[in-house]
């Protein structure tokens, strides 16, 4: 087999070919228009847009569509590519949602490691006062990259959960639009390459990229804007596909309120992604135009009389947070869905208040659209807006509370067992509780005026995102691992992972919050010894390394168990969900025959009840 036959390799070749062609075209155009040949903003932006298209052409994510324009029909191909080993399908365009789900999940995990490593680099620097090896400029780049790489990893991880599980859970053959699904995954890859290239040039604003700062620095900013715009496009296309799949492709008998609860969470998440992502795309596009074409959207410009005839910096913050706050719910709603999905299985009990849990996801998504201004209490907008956003933000606590109490109701009276996925589910609840409860203190504007931009906020959102996404993601990986690979992970290593990571994370969160109340600001390359936070900072660094080490244990576990793990069988967890009623690993065509739904999803303990009816061979 030739290496060039891998889609990924062809894509990367296409990327760099596209880059060179695009840059050359811009230079030639500039010369033709009588401008100087080299303007790094224009040349890089032109080159990178062309590079991303080059990647998509190279990998073949648009091949079928291009053929359609020429009237050529392209039937869906099933199974690994002809004449190549089975693993190669993961490195090229494949339309099977299970392959795409794995592609999303593994890329997400890879980026989690990369983004986490960036954090370890600057955590090492922050372990003590004084600047030792990371100069402030590099520090700022690492800090900013940590954020966007980690956020990209979460978006891809969410995509992994959704793409792999939604069609399986609703008994569908595949997603509604398989080609769009593959396109939405592959467009992430050149975006990630672009994002990583930005590191070579540096950028120093943090992920928020507030202008005017983001209009000044190096050309790395343009790469970030383009990368995030492209990842945003993937979010929009992917969520559209998921919504259509869930609304149109459910089997007979599966009303909306009989969907597995995770589907509700994904539905709520997809609604946010479909409708809010445009705003950050727009905001970053405007920054890019302002940088490369000088259009004054955000930076004030004064005429001779001193009147501002330019832009307004705060406008950007509204656009940015209109997406970036709901984005937090994009990250956590699927995770909370995983918690709700797993608890009944390990408690052997119905999910307490199914409808309330389902609707609370929608409520969080909808209220989430109205709270963005709480990131801007100190921004200088009209002071009365603080009151509006304080009240709307506090309201988020209500549907979130419903989830916590329903989880307790689910545990109460169960027959609880504690394999690794259950441990991570419980760990997720504990960590998300820390994140959730430290929220209202930031929502009441007065306290936020002190806490804003301190390590308290850092502690709060890491707890929210770890409790709401990372812990549940790991729970999901361990839980569905036997369904994906057909083999069990190593339970001892799984438990070791949990018992290192969870106390490590509790310690990290609390230490970060302590540092914040003691006056430690966010995003600083060095801190004043007079603050007295050295010990706390050292604790955060040590905890960070413990968490990182535990994640390496998981990755080792996942790799080795795929070869040597015990065969899992169809349904090791005795779940009622459709995906556990078919063989592990899931066959190419998941369901040999259509399923129908004949009961409630979580009626554990109700004698004689069933959820899924598999049509027998002679039933048709």
């Amino acid at each position: 087999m030739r290496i060039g036959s891998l889609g990924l390799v062809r894509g990367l070749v296409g990327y760099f070919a596209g880059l060179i062609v695009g840059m050359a075209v811009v230079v030639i155009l500039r010369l033709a228009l009588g401008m100087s040949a080299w303007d790094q903003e224009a040349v890089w932006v032109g080159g990178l847009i062309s590079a991303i298209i080059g990647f998509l052409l190279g990998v073949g994510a648009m091949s079928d569509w291009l053929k359609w324009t020429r009237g050529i029909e392209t039937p869906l191909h099933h199974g690994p590519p002809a004449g190549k080993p089975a693993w190669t399908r993961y490195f090229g365009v494949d339309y099977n949602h299970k392959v795409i789900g794995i592609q999303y999940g593994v890329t997400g995990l890879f980026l989690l490691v990369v983004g986490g490593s960036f954090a370890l680099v600057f955590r090492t620097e922050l372990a003590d006062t004084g600047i030792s090896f990371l100069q402030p400029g590099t520090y700022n780049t690492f800090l900013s990259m940590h954020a966007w790489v980690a956020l990209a990893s979460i978006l891809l991880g969410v995509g992994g959960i959704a793409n792999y599980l939604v069609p399986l859970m609703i008994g569908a053959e595949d997603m509604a639009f398989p080609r769009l699904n593959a396109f939405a995954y592959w467009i992430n890859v050149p975006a990630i390459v672009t994002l990583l290239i930005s590191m070579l040039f540096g950028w120093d604003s943090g992920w928020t990229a507030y202008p005017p700062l983001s209009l000044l620095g190096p050309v790395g900013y343009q790469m970030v804007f383009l990368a995030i715009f492209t990842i945003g496009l993937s979010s929009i296309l992917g969520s559209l596909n998921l919504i259509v799949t869930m609304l149109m492709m459910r089997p007979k008998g599966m009303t909306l309120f009989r969907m597995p609860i995770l589907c509700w969470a994904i539905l709520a998440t997809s609604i946010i992604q479909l409708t809010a992502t445009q705003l950050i795309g727009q905001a970053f596009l405007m920054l890019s135009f302002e940088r490369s074409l000088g259009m004054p959207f955000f930076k004030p410009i004064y005429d001779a009389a001193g009147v501002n005839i330019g832009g307004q910096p705060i406008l950007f913050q509204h656009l940015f947070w209109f997406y970036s706050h709901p984005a937090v719910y994009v990250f956590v709603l699927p995770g909370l869905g995983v918690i709700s999905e797993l608890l009944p299985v390990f408690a052997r009990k119905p999910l307490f208040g199914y409808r309330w849990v389902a609707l609370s996801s929608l409520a969080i998504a909808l209220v989430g659209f109205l709270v963005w201004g709480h990131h801007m209490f100190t921004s200088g907008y009209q002071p009365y807006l603080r009151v509006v956003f304080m009240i709307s933000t506090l309201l988020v606590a209500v549907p979130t509370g419903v989830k916590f109490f329903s989880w307790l109701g689910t545990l109460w009276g169960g027959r609880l067992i504690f394999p690794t996925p259950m441990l991570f589910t419980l760990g997720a609840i504990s960590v998300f509780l820390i994140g959730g409860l430290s929220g209202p203190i930031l929502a009441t504007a007065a306290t936020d005026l002190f806490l804003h931009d301190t390590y308290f906020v850092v502690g709060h959102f890491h707890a929210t995102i770890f409790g709401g996404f990372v812990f549940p993601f790991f729970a999901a990986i361990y839980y569905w691992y036997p369904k994906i690979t057909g083999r069990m992970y190593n339970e001892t290593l799984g438990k070791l992972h949990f018992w290192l990571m969870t106390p490590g994370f509790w310690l990290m969160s609390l230490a970060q919050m302590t540092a914040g109340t003691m006056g430690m600001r966010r995003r600083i390359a060095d801190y004043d010894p007079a603050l007295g936070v050295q010990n706390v900072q050292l604790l955060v660094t040590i905890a960070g390394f413990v968490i990182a080490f535990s994640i390496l244990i998981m990755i080792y576990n996942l790799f080795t168990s795929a070869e040597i793990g015990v065969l899992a069988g169809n349904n090791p967890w005795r779940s009622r969900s459709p995906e556990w009623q078919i063989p592990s690993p899931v066959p190419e065509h998941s369901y040999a025959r259509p399923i129908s739904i004949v009961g409630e999803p979580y009626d554990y303990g109700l004698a004689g009840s069933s959820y899924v009816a598999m049509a027998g061979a002679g039933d048709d």
Partner: protein
Amino acid sequence: MLKLPQSYSDRKHFLIVGALVAIVTVALGFFLLAILPIKAQASMQAEPIKWLFQLHLWLIAFLFALVVVFMLYALFVFRRRKNDDSEGEHFEGNTALEVIWTVVPLVLVVIFSFIGLRTLQDATSGGDEVQVKAEGFQWSWAFSYPNGVTSAEMVLPVNKPALITLQARDVIHSFWVAEWGPKQDLVPGMTTSLHITPTKVGEFQLKCAELCGLSHWSMAATVRVVPEEEYTAWMDAKLAEQNLQTASR
């Protein structure tokens, strides 16, 4: 050894959990107060912030205890025993409970909105007996007083309401003296302001709290709060010094 009831609906469970929640709330409340020592306490505007912060900590202690004690208790009492292959109790929910734990938090939200509003007013209002303009730029600060005096450090008299007007010359910065409590961004093209009535004499550090580029971490200035006589003396000396410079030019 305490014999725990086996039935999930036995009232004894809830008595035990209730008692544990009360104990844990108190212990956790004091623990949080100890590990989260809020630094804001040297201005009139810091007081409501600190008060509300600590009120929050007690609420957090209670809610954390409520969820975690219930959870740990359930994990212990309802764990599967050896050789027990039965399923859990079958109940699918309880509408009355769901309504209660929707309405009670809603009431709490209303209460905290009201408290939050009052506290916000107290933390952001004050007089303007002393006025000073602070300008932020990459990566330092400059101060000027209405009488034309300029300075690289900010000096304020203790217990006098001060109005600090804020302007940014290049990018967004944020004015924050941790001991004083609130912070406020400086935005190019706008003038923002902050009311501070310092209540403690001493030397503090003003630090930029909004990432503003390369040397953001070191963008600081000294802030001195002094008795009123000392402030007047400092101002007179500055006036004399700067008038002298103007005259001799």
